[in-house]
């Protein structure tokens, strides 16, 4: 590699990253067109995009995306409320921890996807079952991080607050909760990533609409290009969601704690 190019790549991570992605796409394109040569099973990226744009309307894509995002929002929000509340309580109120922790730990090893069949039994094939499974997936990382954050609040902060006559629920809400935010933020990011995986699986298995359904539908119709397009779409959207969440975290917690 010519020295100037190497130097430029070393200086700019964005450029190096873009090059990496470009090389990969190029390799795929070449391999698909020249070696595999069967667009029905493995289309090149360009072919996939063109086919997808031809067969799907933007409105259709938007609908599936919005439905999926709606489910994630609902499940994630419920998990955040429940996880943060119970986590903070477990972290600071010994009685609550002793009571709840064994139950939570007993359910934790069961992967969220394993809940899908029973969720369908309890809630049918509608929105509720998907939201329920996403809730389960997001709950555990959030609960764990909230519990950890609350349990590890420096004693000196608590003593400070007590010397200012802050006690009981006020102590939890005005001191423990803000102090735990950096840890909770990490849990939220992990939970969001998990939510997408769980959502897609749930939609693959039992849904009429949504991004996961889009992939399944494409396969049923033999539209591999559309399926690949949808898979990448899911990936891009989950990356965007994570970026948004990170930005929110940086603007709030990031102001008072290097994040």
């Amino acid at each position, binding site marked *: 590699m010519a020295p100037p190019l190497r130097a430029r790549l070393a200086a700019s991570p964005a450029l190096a990253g873009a090059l990496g992605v470009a090389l990969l796409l190029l390799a795929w394109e070449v391999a698909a067109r020249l070696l595999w040569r069967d667009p029905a*099973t493995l289309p090149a990226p360009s072919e996939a995009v063109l086919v997808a744009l031809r067969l799907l309307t933007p409105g259709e894509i938007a609908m599936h995306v919005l439905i999926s995002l709606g489910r994630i929002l609902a499940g994630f929000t419920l998990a955040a409320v429940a996880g943060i509340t119970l986590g903070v309580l477990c972290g600071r109120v010994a009685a609550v921890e002793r009571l709840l922790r064994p139950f939570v730990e007993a359910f934790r090893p069961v992967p969220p996807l394993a809940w899908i069949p029973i969720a369908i*039994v309890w809630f049918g094939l509608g929105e509720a079952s998907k939201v329920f499974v996403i809730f389960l997936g997001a709950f555990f990382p959030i609960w764990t991080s909230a519990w950890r954050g609350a349990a590890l609040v420096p004693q000196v902060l608590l003593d400070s607050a007590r010397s200012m006559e802050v006690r009981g629920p006020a102590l939890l809400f005005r001191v423990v909760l803000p102090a735990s935010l950096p840890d909770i933020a990490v849990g939220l990011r992990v939970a969001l990533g998990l939510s997408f995986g769980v959502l897609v699986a749930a939609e693959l298995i039992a849904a009429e609409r949504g991004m*996961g359904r889009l992939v399944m539908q494409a396969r049923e119709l033999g539209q591999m290009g559309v399926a690949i397009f949808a898979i990448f779409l899911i990936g891009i959207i989950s*990356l965007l969601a994570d970026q948004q969440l990170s930005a929110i975290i940086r603007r709030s917690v990031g102001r008072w704690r290097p994040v």
Partner: protein
Amino acid sequence: MNARHALPPLALLAALLLGWEAAAAAGWLTPIRFPPPSRLATSFRELALEGFPFGAFLSTHVVATLRRVLAGYLIAVALAVPLGLLIGASPLLDRMASPVVAFGRSIATLSLLPLALVWFGTEEAPKVFLIGFGCFWVMLSNVIAAIKLVDPVLLRAARSMDTPPRDIFLRVMLPAALPRIAAGARMALGMGFVVIVGAEMIGTSIGLGALIMEARTFYRSDITMVGMACIGAIGFALTALLGLLEARLMPWRRGRQT
């Protein structure tokens, strides 16, 4: 947790189980949606001794699932570790690979299932592929991070002792990175387990994921619940096992949390 502290949750558990049993007996909870604990016990026996569906024993399902997980996991680790070491050791490769790895991790593994079915048929191969895919990215990003995060102080110390580069890599970087690589291995196995449960829910009748899904179509939610408990137990056992292995292989980390 000492005896006095174990009492409240045990009491709560007993109360819940009894309440559940009573509610089912009284007809408040439909047996299809909430099979009572007594029913679950018999279902477990049935599953273990007679098999479901159609004579597939619990052990058959467990073995099938574990085989798939292991196969995919080992392939993923075999590919990810050398690649990860290479990428982690070269800042240029790392920068080039970083968005690719980030994107690879963000692809919902199960979304590839339909594609995998087309490419690999409906036997073991698509499942192994999916598990491999899911485990690969987790393992890769952890190995890369493990190398990158080796304490620079250690490297400087080695260089100031005139250690040749190959030895620096083999005798300083690798051992220093090992704890994090082990943690990644644990996470990857967890991921593999999660993936298989989902992957088995489509188009298979043998395997734990298949079991709980099939049971639903037969209106046997009791079998589903027993299956879920088994999945949880196995997942827990796997994590515990890996934890033990980790402690054995890295005695210098004893007493510290990863």
